[in-house]
């Protein structure tokens, strides 16, 4: 009876944690929805010809690939496979850093062709900047996760920390999947 209560308590706690995290994602979604709608409200379908669409595609592929490695890290952690968990977290961090380098390259081109003082430039730098900040915070969280994992913090039965951070990383990917066509492809 006591064991059943304990299991039920742990399940409820996990369920509450998940619900809280999804509510946080919902609140974050409003920020990105406001940015996406402001793009259409202020600039319509206008897109500068100098915008590097191919680089946009490359960094999108990198971010989607990082979602796969984050997913694999979570699955490995859920099955107690610590070596694969750490390896995939390292891959995810590396891909996140490569994505940020891609954004910096985009910004260098952006400052030249459509600086922040222009209408499109304001939107471009705000949207990619807010998103890049989320990527950066995700990388910091993944790094903390890596070191916690290395010290044996997570087991196959207790890995909420991994699940939460990986979900956050996927959310950052979802936001980009919507931002990329909005900024780079509509015309």
């Amino acid at each position: 009876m006591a064991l059943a209560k304990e299991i039920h308590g742990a399940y409820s706690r996990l369920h509450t944690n998940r619900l809280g995290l999804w509510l946080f994602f919902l609140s974050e979604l409003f920020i990105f929805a406001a940015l996406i709608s402001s793009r259409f409200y202020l600039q319509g379908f206008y897109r500068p010809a100098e915008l590097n669409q191919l680089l946009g595609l490359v960094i999108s592929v990198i971010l989607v690939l990082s979602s796969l490695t984050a997913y694999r890290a979570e699955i490995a952690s859920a099955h107690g496979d610590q070596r694969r968990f750490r390896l995939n977290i390292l891959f995810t961090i590396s891909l996140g850093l490569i994505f940020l380098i891609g954004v910096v390259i985009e910004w260098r081109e952006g400052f030249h062709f459509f600086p922040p003082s222009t209408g499109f430039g304001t939107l471009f730098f705000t949207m990619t900047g807010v998103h890049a900040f989320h990527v950066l915070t995700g990388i910091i969280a993944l790094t903390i996760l890596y070191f916690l994992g290395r010290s044996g913090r997570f087991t196959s039965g207790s890995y909420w920390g991994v699940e939460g951070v990986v979900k956050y990383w996927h959310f950052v990917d979802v936001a980009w999947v919507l931002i990329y066509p909005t900024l780079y492809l509509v015309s």
Partner: protein
Amino acid sequence: MKSDQRSLMRLGLWVFVALMVVEILEYIVGVGLKRGAWPFLVILAVPGAGLIIYYFMHISQLWRREE
């Protein structure tokens, strides 16, 4: 690697392949169509985001009773 772990890893790989197809199709539509690309982009981007939310973020855990 356990068999259920392997099958989950394989599922993740298929989702990734589907997302790659979505991203590349979006690019082709965005570059190829000079006008009126947005309905096609919406049709591609929303299911792409849905794939991540359903398979990678496991949204169904929210209404599942037991683990």
